[in-house]
C-alpha cells in the first residue's frame, strides 16, 4: 500500500502548488519595512540635503534643520509613529543612497521621473514645480527661455539633476553650461559674476532668492517637464509606498500643505501657489 501512496502524495503536492499561481509575492520580501508594525524599535534613516533654503537647511552650530521637506518629515514622523535620523546627501547621491541601502527614504526636492523609477520607487507627488532661472537682482538681460538657452549666456546647473538633463541638449556656443555638484556652488558663482544665471526647479530658486536679496527669480520663465517631487524609496518597496501615499494624500487634502508652503515660500506670488499643489498622489508602481 505504501508503495502506491508516495506518487499520490507527490501529485497532490504538485497540484496544490499549481493552485498558488495567482498569489503575489510579498512586496517587501527581504527588506524590513520601517513603517509597518512593529514600529518604534528601528530607526528610519532619511536622506536630506542641507543647503536648500526654503526646503532643507542645516544651521551650523545649533544643528537645526529647517525647510518644507523637514516640516514634511516631522509631520510624517508624528503620524506614522516612527523614529528617524537624518543623513545628509548631495543631490547626486540621492539615488545611490537608496540603491546602496544607506537610507530608507529620501525627502530632498527629489523629482519623480520615469528613468529614476527603473531603479527606485517614489511616493508622491507632494509638490509640482517647473524649471526656472535666477539672475542677479537688477540684471534683466534674460527674460525668456530663448534668452536663456540661445542667448550665448553662461548658465550654472548641478550634475545629475533634471535641470542638467533639460539644458544638456542646448549646450553649445549659444549656451555655456557650468556644471557643479551643489546648488550652493551655483549661487556663489552667480553672485561672483562667473555665470549669468543658474537654472533649476523654480521653487528651489525661490528659496535661494528669499535667503539672499541680491538674487532674483525670473517669474515668467519656466520650461520643461512638470517637476513632481516625491519621497524616494528603495526599489520594490510597495508596502511602504502605499503607507506614505495615504499619508501624503492626507497632507494634500488638509490645510497642512498650504500652511507649510506659505511658511517657507513667502516670496512666491499668491496667485501661483495653486499651480504647485498636486491634486492627487500617484498610485504606487
Amino acid at each position, binding site marked *: *500500500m505504501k508503495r502506491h501512496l508516495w506518487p*499520490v502524495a507527490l*501529485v497532490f503536492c*504538485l*497540484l496544490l502548488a499549481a*493552485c498558488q499561481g495567482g498569489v503575489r509575492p510579498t512586496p517587501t520580501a527581504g527588506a524590513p519595512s520601517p513603517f509597518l508594525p512593529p514600529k518604534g524599535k528601528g530607526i528610519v534613516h532619511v536622506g536630506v540635503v542641507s543647503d536648500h533654503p526654503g526646503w532643507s537647511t542645516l544651521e551650523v552650530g545649533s544643528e537645526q534643520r529647517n525647510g518644507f521637506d523637514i516640516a514634511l518629515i516631522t509631520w510624517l514622523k508624528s503620524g506614522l509613529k516612527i523614529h528617524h535620523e537624518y543623513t545628509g546627501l548631495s543631490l547626486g547621491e540621492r539615488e545611490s543612497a537608496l540603491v546602496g541601502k544607506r537610507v530608507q527614504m529620501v525627502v530632498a526636492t527629489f523629482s*519623480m521621473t520615469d528613468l529614476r523609477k527603473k531603479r527606485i520607487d517614489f511616493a508622491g507627488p507632494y509638490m509640482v514645480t517647473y524649471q526656472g532661472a535666477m539672475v542677479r537682482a537688477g540684471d534683466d538681460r534674460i527674460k525668456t527661455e530663448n534668452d536663456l538657452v540661445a542667448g550665448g549666456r553662461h548658465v550654472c546647473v548641478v550634475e545629475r539633476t*533634471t535641470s542638467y*538633463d533639460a539644458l544638456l541638449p542646448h549646450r553649445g556656443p549659444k549656451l555655456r553650461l557650468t556644471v557643479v555638484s551643489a546648488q550652493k556652488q551655483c549661487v556663489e558663482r552667480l553672485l561672483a559674476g562667473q555665470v549669468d544665471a543658474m537654472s533649476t526647479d523654480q521653487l528651489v530658486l525661490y528659496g535661494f532668492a528669499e535667503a539672499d536679496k541680491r538674487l532674483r527669480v525670473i517669474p515668467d520663465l519656466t520650461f520643461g*517637464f512638470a517637476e513632481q517631487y516625491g519621497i524616494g524609496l528603495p526599489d520594490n518597496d510597495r508596502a511602504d509606498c502605499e503607507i506614505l501615499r495615504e499619508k501624503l494624500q492626507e497632507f494634500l487634502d488638509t490645510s497642512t500643505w498650504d500652511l507649510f508652503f506659505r511658511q517657507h515660500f513667502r516670496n512666491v506670488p499668491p496667485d501661483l501657489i495653486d499651480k504647485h499643489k498636486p491634486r492627487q498622489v500617484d498610485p504606487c508602481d
Partner: protein
Amino acid sequence: MWVAAGALGVWAAAQGAKGAENVENASLVVALITLGVTVAGMMRKPQDERAAAEWRLPGMLIAALGIVVALAVGATLWMLIHKPDRNITDLVKLSGNTGMRFGGTADLVYDQPPERENLALTLTLENPHPGGNCVTPARMTVTPKVDGRELKAREAVSGQELPLQLYGAERRVEAQVLLTVPDPACVLDLRVSEAVLHN
C-alpha cells in the same frame, strides 16, 4: 497514477496563459479528490487486500484505456472547437505610436481573421527622455473595432491587460488608442507588450 499526472500536465499546458484560472480551479478539485482517495485507501481493512489484488491488473488497464480515450477526445475538442491561445504580439501593426503627446492617437491593426472570441491586449508606454513623470499618470482610451464596427471604448494605464471581446469578428481587429497625460511636456512611445487571442 503517473499516467494520470502526465495527462493532467498536458491538459494544463494546453490551456495557455489565459486559461490559468481554469487550471487552478481544476487542479484544486483534482487535488482534493486525490487526497480523498489516498485517505480512503489508507483506512481500508486488511481483508480487502486480496480482493483489491485481484482487481489491480484489470483496473489499471481500464484506467489506462479511459485516460487514452479521454485525452484523444479532449485534444480533438480542444484543437477543433476551443482552439489554443494564439500570441499575435508581433503581428499587430502599429502606426502613430511614437512621439505621442496629450490628445495624440495611435492605431493598432491585426488584419487577419482572429478565429477567437477574445483578445487580451497589454499596451505599454515608454518615456524616451530622462526627465518627466509621464508614464504612471498617463491614461489610454482604447476604442476597439471589429470588421469595421466600433465597440465600446475602454480605459487603461500602461502595462494593464485589457480583455476585449471580439463578438465574432471574421476579418480584422483594429483599435485606436487616445493618450491623455497631465503634463503637456510629456512625449511618450506606445508599444504592444502582449496581444493574445483566446476563447
